């Protein structure tokens, strides 16, 4: 059945609902966050005008039987703010990451939850168009880490939301992506990373395979998808000259790639139930269901 809403929708997630309810949280071009019950879609279950400009990215945690803690939704918008919402609290976000007074704002292009391994811990990672990546810790309500990858950040994902943060993949313009090892944070150098240039065009999205957190797929602006595997180094951390712990990044290898379309593939997702089944949507107005075989042998 077809459901139409007054404003175009940019992004959506099922991440914050329970498996039975299956409410879809969407962000639209007008900056509104809505949560819909798809069986009664006329009136949203939750609605708030969260941002002044388009909500570019949304993520949910605490639902779907994954992880512990309160269900929360985070939205990142072109107005430069990142806000965390609890569906039980109306109108005001539970956390708001906004620019300092007088600072010119940068578009926030992507947000991701991570580190939600118990009820208190949670982090939100946000990527901006000027290449900034910022990691906010929601337990201490502070900025835990930031870096700049020299290209606008298109997509961020932790390899698992519900474990102690392990790996973070950030994809950007100019065909580059970075894999950060999030287990060891050095006081000045931050997290160790390895980066790879996959292609000349923008990498629009990265998604980790739910069944194997070292395998992920990136989708590109040239209509191609690439399947990658991360290999851990022999030692994940070592001591530097002052004795502080420093992370060691591993290596990434390309398993397979295929060109599906001439237009960018802007979003993709894996099926949590069937290993290797994924779906992707592209600018050529098609939704493609893909099958990746032999993932057992990876």
């Amino acid at each position, binding site marked *: 059945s077809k459901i139409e809403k007054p404003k175009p929708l940019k992004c959506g997630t099922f991440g914050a609902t*329970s498996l039975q309810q299956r409410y879809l949280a969407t962000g639209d071009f007008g900056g509104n966050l809505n949560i819909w019950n798809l069986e009664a879609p006329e009136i949203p279950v939750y609605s708030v005008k969260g941002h002044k400009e388009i909500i570019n990215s949304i993520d949910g945690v605490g639902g779907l039987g994954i992880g512990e803690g309160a269900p929360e939704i985070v939205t990142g918008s072109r107005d430069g703010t990142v806000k965390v919402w609890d569906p039980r609290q109306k109108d005001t976000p539970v956390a708001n990451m906004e620019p300092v007074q007088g600072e010119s704002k940068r578009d926030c292009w992507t947000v991701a939850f991570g580190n939600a391994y118990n009820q208190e811990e949670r982090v939100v990672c946000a990527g901006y*168009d000027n290449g900034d990546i910022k990691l906010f810790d929601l337990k201490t309500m502070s900025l835990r880490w930031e870096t700049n990858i020299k290209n606008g950040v298109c997509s961020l994902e932790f390899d698992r939301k519900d474990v102690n943060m392990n790996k973070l993949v950030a994809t950007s*313009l100019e065909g580059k992506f970075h894999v950060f090892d999030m287990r060891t944070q050095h006081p000045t150098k931050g997290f160790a990373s390895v980066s790879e240039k996959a292609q000349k065009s923008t990498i629009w999205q990265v998604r980790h395979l739910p069944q194997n957190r070292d395998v992920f797929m990136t989708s590109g602006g040239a209509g191609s998808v690439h399947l990658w595997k991360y290999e851990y180094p022999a030692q994940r951390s070592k001591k530097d000259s002052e004795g502080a712990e420093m992370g060691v990044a591993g290596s990434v290898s390309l398993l397979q790639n295929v060109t599906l379309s001439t237009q960018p593939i802007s979003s993709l997702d894996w099926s949590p139930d069937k290993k290797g089944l994924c779906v992707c949507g592209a600018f050529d107005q098609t939704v493609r269901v893909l099958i990746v075989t032999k993932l057992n042998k990876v």
Partner: protein
Amino acid sequence: MPVWLREYSWRQTPAAVYLSLPVRGVRVTPASIFCTDQYLKVSIPPFLFEAVLYAPIDDTNSTAKIGNGIIFFTLYKKEVAMWDSLTLANANKEKLQCLRENAILKAQEKAKEETEAKKVTKQEHKKYALEATMKLEEAERKRIEDLKEKERQKFTKELELWQKEQQDAEKQNRVRKEVELHQKVEQLKERKKEKMNKTRIPNEGTSKTGLKAVKGCHGSHSMFSENLKEEQLPPPRSAATIKTTFTSRVFPTALRESRVAEEEEWLRKQVEAQRTISADLSELEDLKEEEKSPDWLKDKGNKMFATGNYLAALNAYTLAVRLNNKLPLLYLNRAACHLKLRNLHKAIEDSSKALELLTPPVPDNENARVKAYVRRGTAFCQLELYMEGLQDYEAALKIDPKNKTIEEDAEKIRQLIQGTPDS
């Protein structure tokens, strides 16, 4: 005059003619034998043998064996017949000439045809090779496609099986849950009955809720589990704000590494433009509007130069340069002032700057460049750096070879250099 070889012997069978020709003292190569279907010639300077044959022969199959001092021809006749003689009897000079020419033409044509035939066969071989490789590649591609197809089918079968399993599992789950629910409801009912019996207070409220639970069981049969879960969820976080700062960026567009160089260039130009504008503002407030234009200042400078007021001209040009340091003529004219004032080093500097600005060298700025070279050359010479001066004069000459004065000056410098070899 060639020496005709007349000693030969021949014998024939109905199908062939065997001719042996003694050739003494010279080396015979295949090139010296020329044969067409009715004409045979052997030419080894100074010896010559030719024969207009009685009847046509098959010259492609005929052979010539070159032995020690003798050539042995085996000529196969086109028509099986016995010849009266080897050569045609009535062969006058003209006929001979005609025959010779025809023979040569025929030979050429044959050669051409042969090359054509060779070309054609080569083409065909190439085509064949190409088709063969294409077939091989096709086969390889097909093999890979087949593998993929097989995988695809295997996976779709697995998928269908898995889907069926899921559906079956769901059905079972649902059935099981309904059974459980019924059991629970039953238990509740019993407990309520007990309570009612015990207290004898009509607890309509509780019974209603119990019934409601039964009614709503299909849609939200997990209501019980949900209520339990809600109690376990932590309360919403207390609201807080985190202030963020961004890595500064002048442009509103997203950062791309490939554009960084262009952006830096643009910013640099903006800064420079700003600088010249601000230079204007500081000291030139007492000048009128028109006096701030470099062109006007240049004209003023030229006038003062013409009247001999070199210092004033210098000042005018300097001010003009401050306003716009990209005009080569300003530097050129300032170099002339310096020359007159004998500031030789400054003259060299300004001529060099003018030359720099006058790249690329095109016919339009020929005059300017000649002047620049001449002025620099003069400055060098006055500093007694004659080699450098000569170089500049020669460069000027290269641009404008017809200028007599430059030539004469260049000559003078050369003499000076030669006249004092030790200095």
